């Protein structure tokens, strides 16, 4: 067990981040050292996880690592364990990539701010917390990591305390976040009282057998705790306020990483700890909550006037997609859900970075005041469009591949289970996708196209560091969109297989044969096979689209298409916009005045939603309690 | 949403189109359509009535001195005409006629001008002994002697006081407004400058006491 054997890599991945945080506090006085330290710790963590991919993903091995060498004695796990199976490594990789890109972005993004040292400390603590949560195999250890990431996220939301609403958003996040953490803590305590162990694998072996009321209450508490972290429906306004105020690189982390950790918790909880996904009602819970948050958040996003709040609501709506897919409990559903989770981190990260670029250059993200930035920031516009097209699922980009798998999964589930409810979910999913496209058309018209206001006349392009970070995400968007089979074979299929092979998870932790001895009916490890029904093979589609586009452009250029007449003199009426003959004054159609037809027809719905999202923290706390009560009721009746 | 005209749409699909195929089929104008102006210079007496009543002041008159007399050209600018035909109504000699030809399309200004000219010969009488009428100095038009009325040599009208009943009809009808009649003072005066010797007063006078 030499220091460099792969067994230690999980703990190295976590510790490199925490060590980085510690060193930045100590030595982070001057900028270069601080940036170098942050970069090294983030890339080290990414490197360690990449080294594990061959072993865990392809060979299917599950790494069980007992901290301090305390192996289980007498059938009881005393020490704290880290367990990395395909699912945790999948989420770990996702987190490491997002953290890496966000760190590169924040080098130049945070240049204007002061006390950036604290920023990097909290940044690395947040990253370490999430990495710890995803890789740990011990329930209490997961709770500690949840605490770390919640406090780091709250502090980072309020980092720019001069910004309006930053403190208030952080306070709201703190209140409901702590309610969620306490729910997790109480749930963990109740499970420990039942099974006298905190080890995740042993717990899932012991708990699944006898489900008495205590475990049912524990399930409800844990479920609500993790959904606060994932900002699912009753808790989504927090995300909107948090993203509105937090710096863009932190929004990337919150939306790309924090919500995924919440999802990871829910998947672990429902598939492993309680193994209750077989129940139809449990699937109904996840699918219902998922499609509810999918639809509510996308309609709320359409009504937003602020770029980052709009993106925040979208990230919750995409989380709704992932939750719906994960709730189907079919091989294709899980794989589609995980694939969409990965895509979501990538394109949502890209969009938040683009929002940060706009904020960095113009100082505002209000859709009403911006406009025409494509003339001054062409690269950011192209990168934003790639992100916008992939989130709304336009074929050549990655959003389409995963959404398309989700539609198939929900529709196949509807056909297999004969229950028409899932059909409704497919329809909601498809309509939500169009509404996502609508809100991104709104953003592109209000921010990047349309007329350039006078105050942003001398806006320049963002520095190269930020564009490079956005470029990485854009490249990932296109690559994962073009080679879905590559992604599914090496990433999502092993992860989906891991989700179903609970027995293997327990045995690798507690020693072979443990699962059979303890559990009444140890779940057999299913073989993951699903046939993708459609015939979407992106490379040849894109090839044909490219050839067609090439043919069109060649014919156009042959017809002297680009011999256009541009404006010769500074003022010449011919190249002014047509205003019905009037002098073409500055008039931008953007922000609130778009989609009147849709808003008019849904005005009662929007009115009700407007009153519901009051922005007062006690309303949101009340919602959290109501949600907890409903969850308790549900789990007591159903489980 | 309802489809109000489906029946008509389908039925019209099979019926003949109500289109007057204009460029192919000639479509004459309505019977008394006021189209292009035709000007008959021979009838015109250049009384200037049309020019004064034309609302679009589309009519201009040009007088040139030539040896045979005054060559008067009247031009009607169709581009400035409202085709109300008031000039035709007022023309006592109906020298202006509105035809049914509505094809008034032009690329150059000139195409829209209708003009005609005529020579206005001075009266056939023996030439005036001394000063020419136009150059008559500003002596006031005196009352003609009460003896038997003798026609004036410049062809302008003169009234016979014995027969005149001062009904003021001639003054009303005079296009140029050259005659003043005062019923109380029983006087009849003629303003030489204005008078164009058109003869309307002679025609109109019920007592035929005006002789030219």
């Amino acid at each position, binding site marked *: 067990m030499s220091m460099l054997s792969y067994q230690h890599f999980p703990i190295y991945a976590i510790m490199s981040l925490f060590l980085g945080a510690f060193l930045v506090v100590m030595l982070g006085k001057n900028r270069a050292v601080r940036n170098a330290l942050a970069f090294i710790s983030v890339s080290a963590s990414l490197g360690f996880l990449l080294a594990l991919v061959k072993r865990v993903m392809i060979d299917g091995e599950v790494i069980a690592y007992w901290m301090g060498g305390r192996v289980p004695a007498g059938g009881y796990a005393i020490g704290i364990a880290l367990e990395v199976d395909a699912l945790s490594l999948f989420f770990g990789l996702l987190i490491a990539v997002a953290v890496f890109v966000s760190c590169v972005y924040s080098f130049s993004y945070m240049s204007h701010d002061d006390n950036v040292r604290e920023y990097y400390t909290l940044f690395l603590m947040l990253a370490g917390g999430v990495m710890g949560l995803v890789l740990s195999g011990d329930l209490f250890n997961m709770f500690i990591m949840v605490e770390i990431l919640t406090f780091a996220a709250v502090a980072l939301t309020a980092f720019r305390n001069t910004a309006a609403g930053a403190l208030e958003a952080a306070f709201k996040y703190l209140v409901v976040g702590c309610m969620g953490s306490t729910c997790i803590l109480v749930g963990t305590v109740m499970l420990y009282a039942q099974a006298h162990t905190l080890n995740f694998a042993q717990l899932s072996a012991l708990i699944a057998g006898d489900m008495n009321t205590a475990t049912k209450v524990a399930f409800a508490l844990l479920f609500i705790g993790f959904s606060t972290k994932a900002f699912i429906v009753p808790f989504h306004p927090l995300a909107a306020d948090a993203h509105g105020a937090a710096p863009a690189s932190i929004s990337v982390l919150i939306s790309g990483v924090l919500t995924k950790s919440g999802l990871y918790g829910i998947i672990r909880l429902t598939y492993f700890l309680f193994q209750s996904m077989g129940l139809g009602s449990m699937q109904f819970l996840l699918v219902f909550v998922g499609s509810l948050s999918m639809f509510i958040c996308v309609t709320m996003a359409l009504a937003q006037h602020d770029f980052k709040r709009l993106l925040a609501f979208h990230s919750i709506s995409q989380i709704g997609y992932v939750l719906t897919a994960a709730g189907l409990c079919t091989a294709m559903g899980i794989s589609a859900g995980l694939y969409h989770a990965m895509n979501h981190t990538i394109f949502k990260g890209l969009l938040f970075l683009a929002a940060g670029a706009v904020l960095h250059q113009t100082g505002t993200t209000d859709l009403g005041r911006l406009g025409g930035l494509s003339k001054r920031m062409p690269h950011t516009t192209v990168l934003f469009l790639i992100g916008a097209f992939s989130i709304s699922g336009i074929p050549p980009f990655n959003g389409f591949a995963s959404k398309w798998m989700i539609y198939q999964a929900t529709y196949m589930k509807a056909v297999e289970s004969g229950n028409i409810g899932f059909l409704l979910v497919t329809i909601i999913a498809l309509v939500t996708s169009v509404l996502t496209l609508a809100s991104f058309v709104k953003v592109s018209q209000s921010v990047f196209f349309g007329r350039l206001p006078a105050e942003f006349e001398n806006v320049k392009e963002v520095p190269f560091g930020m564009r490079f970070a956005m470029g990485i995400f854009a490249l990932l968007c296109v690559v994962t969109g073009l080679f879905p089979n590559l992604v599914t074979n090496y990433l999502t299929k092993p992860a989906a297989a891991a989700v179903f092979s609970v027995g293997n998870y327990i045995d690798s932790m507690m020693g072979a044969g443990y699962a059979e001895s303890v559990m009444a009916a140890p779940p057999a490890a299913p073989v993951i096979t699903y046939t993708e029904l459609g015939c979407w093979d992106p490379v040849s589609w894109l090839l044909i689209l490219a050839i067609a586009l090439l043919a069109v452009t060649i014919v156009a250029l042959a017809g002297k298409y680009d011999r256009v007449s541009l404006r010769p003199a500074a003022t010449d*009426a011919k190249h002014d916009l047509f205003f019905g003959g009037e002098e073409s004054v500055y008039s931008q159609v953007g922000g609130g005045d778009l989609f009147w037809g849709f808003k008019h027809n849904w005005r009662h719905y929007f009115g009700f939603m407007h009153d519901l999202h009051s922005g007062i923290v006690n309303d949101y706390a009340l919602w959290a309690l109501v949600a907890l009560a409903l969850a308790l009721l549900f789990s007591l009746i159903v489980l | 949403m309802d489809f109000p005209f489906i029946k008509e749409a389908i039925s019209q699909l099979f019926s003949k189109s109500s289109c007057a195929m204009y*460029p192919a089929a000639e479509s004459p104008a309505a019977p008394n359509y006021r189209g292009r102006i035709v000007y008959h210079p021979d009838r015109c007496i250049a009384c200037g009535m049309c020019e004064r009543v034309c609302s679009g002041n589309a009519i201009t008159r040009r007088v040139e001195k030539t040896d045979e007399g005054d060559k008067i050209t009247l031009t009607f600018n169709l581009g400035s005409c409202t085709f109300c035909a008031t000039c035709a109504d007022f023309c006592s000699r109906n020298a202006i006629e509105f035809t049914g030809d509505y094809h008034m399309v032009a690329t150059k200004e000139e195409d829209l001008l209708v003009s005609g000219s005529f020579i206005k010969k001075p009266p056939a009488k023996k030439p005036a002994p001394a000063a020419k009428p136009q150059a008559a100095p500003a002596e006031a038009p005196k009352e003609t002697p009460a003896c038997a009325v003798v026609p004036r040599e410049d062809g302008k009208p003169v009234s016979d006081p014995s027969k005149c009943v001062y009904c003021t009809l001639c003054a009303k009808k005079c296009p140029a407004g050259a005659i003043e009649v005062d019923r109380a003072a029983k006087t009849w005066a003629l303003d030489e400058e204005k008078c164009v010797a058109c003869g309307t007063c002679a025609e109109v006078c019920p007592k035929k006491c005006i002789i030219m």
Partner: protein
Amino acid sequence: MFKKLIAESAAKSPWLFHINAGSCNGCDIELVSVLTPRYDAERLGFKLAGSPRHADIVVVTGPVTTQSLPRVLRAISQVPEPRCIVTMGSCPQSGNVFRGSYSVAGPLSKYVHVDVDVAGCAPKPEAVIDGLALATKILKEKRGR
């Protein structure tokens, strides 16, 4: 071959853009009546375009009041080449009864080269069709150059 085809079709699909420079709407109704089933200018390819960018023939009605003069000239300048300007009725040609008024900025030909004028105080639809047909011929020659 291609250039000839374009010149041919320039005459076959002239799109109109109508500018009302203070007209009494007599000519405006006549212009629109040209597109009704009775006279149906669409069978010759005419179509009313919404924006000057789509227009080939600009039809101006009304005596070009001082208020509308800058707007008329700006709208006309925004029409892409090759274009034709047709004045309809007597007003744009000469100011008609409004000539000499303080608020009439005079005939259009003072500011812009007018290709075709259709006379008539509210010309007959047939006359308008003649004028437009003449304008398409001019368009074709302009295109030909």
